[in-house]
Every structure is written in C-alpha cells, then in structure tokens.
C-alpha cells in the first residue's frame, strides 16, 4: 500500500462573494505525479496556495501523512514537507544562486556567521542526486529561466520537501527546458517525492502525470488515470463542453471595401519599416497577416490605429482618408483594436474593470455629462458587458489587474467589439490564454466577420491564421510579398514565404524537398 502524502477534503475558499474553491477534494501518494488541470481562474492556484499556507481555507480539512493538520503559514507548510514552486519565481535577482537556496535556513555558527562552504557542499550533493544542474555562485539575475526554476526546485528540496507543488511550471520555458523539467519530475517521483503540478497544457499531462484532477469553476469535475484518458476528453472536461475545432464560417461574398491601404511607407530613424505596402480588407472577411516577428507588423499596426505617423501613402476607411489622423479620429471612424500586449497597451491595470470598459467612450454622453463622469451609467454599462462576454470577475469595481489573462483579454474584446466597429484589428489575440479562452476569442472573431465586419488578424501563430482567415497576406521586410489561399496552402509553404521567398520560388523549393 502506497502512503497517501497529501489529502485535501472538502476544501472551500471564499473571497467575499466569489467562491474560488467549492468542496474540493484530492489525494496524492508517494512517488506520484498529479496534474491539476483547469482553465485560468478555475481555482487551481487558490487551492495550491491553501496547501502551501499562503491562504486559509474557509472550510475543509487537510491531511498530511494521514494526520489532520492546520497549515496556517508558509513555515508550517515547510515543516510539513510541502514545497511550492511559484509561477512567478520567488527569487532575489541580486543574490547568488546559493544565497537564494539557503535564505531563511542558513547553516550558521553561534554568531550568525553563515557557513557558506558547508552549505555549498550539501547543495552540490543534492544537485547530483536529483540531476539538477546549478551554478551556485552565479547571480540569479544572470541565469536562464530554466535554471531559475531549478533554483526554485532546489530551494524546496533543501528544505526537505516531500511534496512539490508547481504552479504552471512550463509557462516561461523553452521546449528544451520543458523536456528537462519533465525529466526532473520523473527523477523526483522515483525518489518517492509526490508532485502536484498546475497546468492547462494537456500535452504535458499526457507526458508525465499519473493522475489528473480536473477543476472547473472552483469544483472538482473528476480525477482520472492519465493513461486511460484521451487528450480530447481531458480538454472537454476542462472547458465543460465540446470544443468546436471547426469554426462555422458563412461563405464570403465580395462586398464593400472597408480598409484600403495604398503605397504606405513608414520610416523610422531614416529606415523604411514599411515600404509601399498595399492592403485591402472588405466587409465580411478575415484577412490574416502572416510574418516573422519584426517584419513591420508593429509599425503597420501603429499606422492603422493612428499611434504613429506615416511617411507617405494613404489609409482609407470607408473611403475616408485617415493617414496621420489622431487616434481618436480612428476610433470614431469605427476601428476596433485588440493590441498584442494586453497589459501594456490594452488595459490600465490599476483601474477597475468598469473604467477599462469605458475607456473608448468616456468623453461623450451618456458616460460624460459636461465633464462629469456618470458612474451610474458606466457601471451598469460594464455590468452588461461582463454578463454578455462572460468575463469572470468578482464585480466591475475590481481592478483589471486582479483578473486572469483570458479574462483580461475578454475585457479588451468586449470594449472593442461592443461599439460595432467596421474594422477590427486583432494582434495575437490569443497569446498566453488557455484553450477555452482561445476557442471563445476565435468564435467572437468569426461572429464579427459573419456580421459583415472587416477583420485584420495579425498573428505569429500560423495555425491561428490558417484556421480563421479567408485570405492570407504574407509580410516580409515591410512589404506584402504574396497572397495565399488558406484552404490550399500548407504550413510548410507559408513558412518559406514568411522567410522571404516569393511564391514562384516557394513552389520550386517545395517540389524539390518533396522529391
């Protein structure tokens, strides 16, 4: 019989009116890897914060090694052998790797002098045992994200953790580092450590986890043996409905021209970032702009939203010339914009959800009456949008910073779509959001298209471009170097074009490589 290391029974956690965890129970045994699967905001992190002593449950019991315990602070968790590796690493960049590992538990003499040499020896031995490669003397500020994570793991092991909790451990890692981490998981499990890791990436679960507990809206949906569950089944349990992989598009009739960009040139410090670029978007179509990052997408977006001046050329919207007009002029000409970086450009994090939703219209009636904001109207306006767009927030007065990534993105989309734009520009609209939110955002974009809006989709995700677009334009070095049909082009061909090959030569290359 394998020892049960952690058992959480009927855990409920409330924040005011919001129930983050509702009667959640789970179990982990020695040497076992348990995945906690759920969308952003499902309550996974809250649950693990309870286990690591950062939060107190409203009700419920926790058993460690079959004994009921109360984990009132991180020290208690530590004493019980629970170690947490946070998503945003809890490291001190100015300190060395060694100092970060021993901080708070330094071996020292009676005068408080730290025995660095002794500490180093202990850690070197442990690093060998667990195959963790660490440069103990390096400053944390100078090491890779992968090594920072190993520092976090070593911190937990140094404190004799038997249970290791990982909060979205792969979010910031490269594919190579993810592989190494999975390897580390297996080594730790073989050393009889129990591992709980929070994720919304099903591939990783299939790769290493033994069991998977699915959490949705704060409740446990099910715990399954990973070897007996399919990827699709896990995804459906996570979002709570069948995922529509094929989005329904009504056929496009060539309709009225909405956006007409002619001979656009944008120079920056004397260099042409965009050169004589032509681009058309019609009603009822999604035009995908594919390209490698840094080929002028940023400058094009800035020109099309009025953020930057253009050097020459014209930008016409519904026949009206807009080049070099103010941002507000663009907004009032019915251009909606979902920027790439939601936290830096899309939202004002320290302001409330309601205020963020009002950002486009705060300056005129009915939100504004002779310079005084009508908060009653703004809040009810926001409440409507929160309901219609399924934005998960405690209330509209919360700061938007407290929302999860997917919900922050929904706030932007709600704001940009609700005033019925003629042209919607979306830049990497699904970057860093989970499967459920991706599906939702894709559905919204297609809905807008079907209602006769023109949509310009700029994305580095080829799958996304190919899945949504009616026409795909390839941008390279500030110029459109070709238009392709997403139904017939292969990702391989598109990739070659993005690298700057013209269509004709791409055909040749592909045939060559197929031979």
């Amino acid at each position, binding site marked *: 019989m394998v020892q049960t290391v952690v058992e959480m029974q009927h855990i409920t956690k409330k924040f005011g009116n919001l129930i983050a965890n509702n009667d959640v129970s789970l179990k982990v045994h020695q040497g076992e890897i348990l995945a906690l699967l759920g969308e952003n905001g499902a309550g996974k992190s809250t649950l693990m914060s309870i286990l690591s002593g950062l939060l107190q449950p409203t009700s419920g019991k926790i058993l460690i090694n079959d004994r009921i315990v109360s984990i009132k602070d*991180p020290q208690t968790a*530590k004493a019980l052998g629970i170690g947490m590796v946070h998503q945003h690493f809890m490291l001190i960049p100015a300190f060395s790797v060694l100092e970060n590992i021993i*901080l*708070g538990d*330094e071996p020292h003499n009676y005068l408080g002098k730290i025995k660095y040499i002794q500490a180093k020896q202990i850690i070197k031995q442990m690093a060998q045992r667990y195959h963790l490669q660490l440069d103990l003397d390096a400053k944390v500020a100078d090491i890779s994200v992968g090594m920072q994570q190993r520092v976090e793991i070593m911190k937990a092991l140094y404190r004799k953790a038997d249970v290791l909790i990982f909060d979205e451990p792969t979010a910031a890692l490269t594919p190579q580092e993810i592989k190494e981490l999975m390897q580390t998981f297996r080594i730790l499990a073989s050393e009889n450590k129990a591992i709980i890791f929070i994720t919304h990436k099903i591939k990783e679960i299939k790769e290493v986890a033994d069991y998977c507990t699915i959490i949705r809206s704060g409740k446990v949906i099910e715990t399954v043996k990973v070897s007996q569950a399919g990827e699709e089944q896990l995804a459906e349990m996570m979002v709570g409905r069948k995922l529509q992989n094929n989005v329904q598009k009504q056929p496009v009739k060539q309709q009225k021209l909405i956006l007409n960009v002619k001979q656009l040139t944008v120079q920056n410090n004397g260099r042409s970032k965009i050169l004589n670029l032509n681009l058309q978007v019609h009603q009822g179509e999604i035009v995908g702009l594919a390209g490698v990052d840094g080929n002028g997408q940023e400058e094009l977006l800035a020109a099309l939203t009025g953020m930057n001046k253009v050097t020459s050329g014209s930008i016409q919207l519904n026949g009206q010339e807009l080049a070099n007009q103010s941002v507000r002029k663009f907004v009032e000409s019915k251009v909606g914009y979902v920027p790439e970086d939601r936290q830096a450009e899309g939202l004002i994090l320290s302001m409330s959800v309601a205020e963020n939703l009002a950002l486009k219209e705060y300056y005129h009636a009915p939100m504004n009456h002779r310079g005084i904001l009508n908060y009653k109207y703004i809040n009810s306006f926001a409440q409507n949008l929160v309901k219609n767009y399924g934005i998960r927030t405690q209330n509209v007065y919360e700061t938007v910073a407290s929302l999860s990534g997917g919900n922050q993105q929904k706030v932007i989309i709600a704001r940009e779509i609700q005033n019925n734009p003629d042209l919607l520009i979306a830049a990497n609209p699904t970057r860093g959001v989970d499967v459920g939110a991706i599906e939702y955002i894709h559905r919204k974009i297609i809905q807008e298209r079907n209602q006769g809006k023109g949509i310009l989709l700029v994305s580095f995700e080829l799958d996304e471009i190919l899945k949504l677009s009616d026409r795909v334009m390839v941008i390279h070095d500030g110029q459109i170097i070709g238009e392709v049909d997403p139904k017939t082009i292969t990702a391989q061909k598109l990739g070659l074009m993005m690298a700057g090959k013209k269509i004709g030569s791409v055909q040749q290359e592909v045939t060559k490589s197929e031979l």
Partner: protein
Amino acid sequence: MSLTTILMTIISTTLVYSAPLIFTALGGTFSERSGVINVGLEGMMIVGAFCSTIFTLNLAPRLGILAAWLALLIGGICGCLFSLLHAVATINLRADHIISGAVLNMIAPAVCVFLTRIFYNGKGQTPVINQGLGTSTINGLKQIPILGKILFTQTSIIAWIAIIIAVICWYVLYRTAFVLHLRSVGENPAAADTLGINVDYYRYWGVLLSGFLGGLGGAVMAQSITLNFSVSTISGQGFMALAAMIFGKWDPIGSMAAAVFFGLAQSLPIIGAYIPGLSHINSVWFQVAPYLITVIVLAIFFGRSVGPAADGKNYIKSK
C-alpha cells in the same frame, strides 16, 4: 608649517567632519537595505544632537569626559526612539516613505528648538558644552613613522571608531544570516515571506538601526563640532549622509568612503586657509562647496546606482 603638519591638520579636520556622516550613512544603509527609504536621517540627527547636548550640559559637571561619551549613546537611543515614528508609519501604516521621512525632518527641528526655548529661558540655543570630545592622540599608533604623525596625532578618535564600525558593518552585511534576511526583505519581500522570513520584523530592525546610527551621528556632530545645540547644528548633514550612502552604492565601506569625501568637502572652510595657494580664495566658496559637491555627486550618480529592488515599496500581504 611643515608638510606633515599641514597633512595632519587636513586629515584630522576631515575626520572630525566625517564621523557624523559615516555613522548616519551607515544607518541609512541598513534602513534602505531592508527596503525602507530613509530621508528622515536629518531629523534623526537633530534629535540625537539635541538629546546628547542636554545630557552633557546636565551631567558633565559630575561625570567629566565620560559624559561626552555617554551622550553619544543617549543620542543614539533617542534617535532610535524617534525613528520608531518612521517605522510605524511606513511598515504598519504603509505610508509613503519619502513623505514620512520629510515629516520627521520637519518635526525634529521644531520640537527640539521649542524644547530648547523652554529649558533655556526662551533662548534659541543651548549654552556651550565645556566637555566636548575634541581631538586626542592615539598613543601606540603615533609611533609609526610619518603616518603616525599624520593620521593618529591630534585626531578624532570617534572617527576612527566610525571607520572600524563601517568595516564591521560590511562584514555583518555580507556574512551573517541576520543581514542576509534583512537584505532579502529589501530585495523581494514576497520571496522572503514564503521562506518564513518576517518582513516587518527585519524592516523594523533596519529602521531602528538607522535611527540609532543617525542619532549617534547627530550626537557626534554636537559633541565634537558645534559644542551646543541650535537650529543650525545639523544643517544638511543628514542629506549629505544620504548622498554618501547612494554614492557608496548602499554598501557600508562605500558609504564610509563617500562620507569621508563629503567630510573633506565640509572641512574645506577651515582647512582652506592652511592649504598654500587656496588661502586667498574667498571663503564663501568653501562654505558653499560641501552642498554644491553633494548636489553634483547626486546628479551624476543617482541615476546610475542601483539600490535594493524593493526599496520604498510597502509590502502588503494578500490574505
């Protein structure tokens, strides 16, 4: 005057003026390393200077020179108590650190001058202390050829103590668990908290140590330079110490070296007359020099020095 005599005068005067700055700058280092910005050093110095002066004036007749040394301790303790205001405001009440520090700087002269007027029949300054620290010669070390005369004759003992304390602080800052914890709460309090380090506890230590050292610095100023207390006893030395701390990159040895440099600048009005070639310059320039140098150094280095990452940021634990 021989060259060694001139050097001796310059160095001993510099040291006399450096001592208060060294102590205060060290204090600032502890406070800011723990993550609490301390612009209230000036106020802490004023309180230290005032309390120590009152102490010596009352007890010198009975204790003699011992009173002057005890007065330093009293100055430190009073500065420490005074800094409690800053600690409570910033750590518990989460006030803005700059504003709280500025308040200390406004309260201190007001209260101390007010009390001076009450104690001394409405006069704005205290009588002069008869028993100051002054300068003395360190017997063993003065035997060292040449250097002994330059460095250890007619010198400020308290300045040498300050330098030794700076070295001890440096050792403590980089070698002990206590200060590793203190530094960690100034760099990333959330991380320290998850490791079971009590953020508030170490920030209190940081502020109280700065209060003690700042008060001590003020007391040294009163006991060895001004020899009384008035509103102008501490005139910008707290800010110079702050500048020295930044110039010294929040490092005890660096702060100490910077403080000695500012001490030299401060002693210019006195030693200028002894330096051949400088004696004919209008003394106004020498008097302006320390402040001018402080401003210039701050302007050049403030942008570049990187202080503790969480300096001035209140830590709010999520419940």
